[in-house]
């Protein structure tokens, strides 16, 4: 069978990324140009600046992806590009570039859902995963539990009603003065502290559904910070550790409760927050106790990347699920 090389392009937030993936799971290159340093001083991603960076960087990133994969542009069989959800101005850069590239190569192109790409990252690295499964999708914009019978048939069991987990990390990190991006900043601070010395709530843990809510936990952490600051007894590391512990506990418990309820033989975790080492540790522990196999992408594949887009693009390619020239980008699902 002829090998199929897919070029993936991803510009949905603050990473300009391109990758070449062969036959859906052989990652020939995975280039990520992160803008973290550019956005750092603003305490979060500035959409207009992200869009400007993308259009400056996209050419070099794609060129590098081809070079690192040791393929010429003519060896590309199709182009897969993230067209939803994300920052609209940022998405439009990658989409416009990828569409034009595919058009000029006279090759098909596919619009890819960024979140499905995150889930697919697991299948690139663990080809042995079988369906059905429960997937916890946890990132800066989303916190959802999804039941997947296969790639096409999925059911949303529950999602966050307010802040996404990654968003809560960012906001608490900013409030505690730990820096940006919040996930790694809180994780680093938490490693120097101890959970349990302060007590924060475990929101929705007692509820019998699969919804999440992290806004209250975030506010509780901020209020506790203010209170402890007033009497001069704040240990920011211990507070970070307790916040992280509370958030992780809710994610772990709800995910495995869903796996038991729906008799899912496998659990997946996907999205940027899946890179959090405490979440990985507690998930592994729970998997062992529950005897339910657990899959994570590697840390590099958790954050936004184009290999996951190209990998999923291969499946769209096989199904001839090609986009038309008027494909647009959408900020939401």
């Amino acid at each position, binding site marked *: 069978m002829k090998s199929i090389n897919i070029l993936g392009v991803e510009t949905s937030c603050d990473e300009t990324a391109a990758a070449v993936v062969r036959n859906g799971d052989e990652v020939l290159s995975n280039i990520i140009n992160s803008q973290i340093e550019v956005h750092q001083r603003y305490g979060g991603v500035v959409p207009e600046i992200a869009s400007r960076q993308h259009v400056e960087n996209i050419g070099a990133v794609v060129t590098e992806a081809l070079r690192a994969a040791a393929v010429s*542009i003519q060896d590309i069989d199709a182009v897969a590009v993230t067209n939803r959800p994300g920052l609209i101005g940022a998405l*439009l850069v990658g989409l416009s570039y990828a569409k034009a*590239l595919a058009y000029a190569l006279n090759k098909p192109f596919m619009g890819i859902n960024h979140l499905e790409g995150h889930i697919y990252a697991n299948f690139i690295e663990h080809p042995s995963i079988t369906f059905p499964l429960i997937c916890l999708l946890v990132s800066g914009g989303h916190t959802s539990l999804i039941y997947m019978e296969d790639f096409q048939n999925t059911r949303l069991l529950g999602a966050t009603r307010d802040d996404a987990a990654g968003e809560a990390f960012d906001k608490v990190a900013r409030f505690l003065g730990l820096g940006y991006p919040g996930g790694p900043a809180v994780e680093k601070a938490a490693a120097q502290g101890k959970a349990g010395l302060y007590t924060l709530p475990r929101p929705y843990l007692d509820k019998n559904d699969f919804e999440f809510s992290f806004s209250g936990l975030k506010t509780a952490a901020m209020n506790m910070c203010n209170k402890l600051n007033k009497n001069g007894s704040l240990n920011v590391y211990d507070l970070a550790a307790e916040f992280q512990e509370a958030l992780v506990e809710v994610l772990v418990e709800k995910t495995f409760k869903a796996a038991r309820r729906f008799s899912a033989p496998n659990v997946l975790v996907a999205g940027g927050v899946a890179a959090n080492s405490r979440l990985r540790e507690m998930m592994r522990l729970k998997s062992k106790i529950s005897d339910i196999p657990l899959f994570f992408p590697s840390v590099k594949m958790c954050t936004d990347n184009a290999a996951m887009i190209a990998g999923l693009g291969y499946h769209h390619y096989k199904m001839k699920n090609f986009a038309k020239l008027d494909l647009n980008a959408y900020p939401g699902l």
Partner: protein
Amino acid sequence: MLILALECSTSVAGVALLKDGVIIKEIFSNYKKNHSETLLPVIDRSLNECQYVLQDLSAVAITIGPGSFTGLRIGLATAKGLCTASGLPLIAIPTLEVLAHNIAYNSLWAGTILDARKNQVYMCVYDVSGGEPVPLAPVNAVAPEIFVANTLELLSIYGEHKIMLLGDGAITYRKLFESSFHQRMIIAPAHLLWPRAAALAELASVKFTKNEFENIDLLKPLYIRRSEAEIRWDELK
């Protein structure tokens, strides 16, 4: 020589094909749909209807700015994708020069004004009497009142000139301009009001003969104005 010209810096999506000095196709769309949906289908349609394929082109040309930030990026990202895949050279022309070229060889000055929102305009004044637009002031983003003051000063220095105002900013601030310039000003008629891909193609053909091409990977839009976040950051400092 066959040049494909893409103009996306305003609400207009414009595509033109220039073959050996002749405009053989121009599509001008200024109706609701956004550039990301229209641009590539219009490029495809233009080439098909003229029985060309992309590989027949000599170069791709774009307006590089100023203009709508998103529009500029859609145009540039599309041009980069086309040129990277095909190996075609890329030519970039400032938007306001393209707009001024609508009245090439005219003795009127071209006062080019695009509505930049936030009570500002992107502006420049060109002497177009020799054919190619020659700027009489730097391209800038200013309040329309500043444009008026600067332009009145220019007019007083150069004496008897009259000015034609082109661009959507001329319509947004029409009353201000009429009451400031009086008889020394004409607002461009509808067919000259917007930057045209045909005018871009014509200016690009001159650059093509001089081999003035852009570095495809490094090229960025000429925004003129910084992002709001950067402006606020400097104010806080």
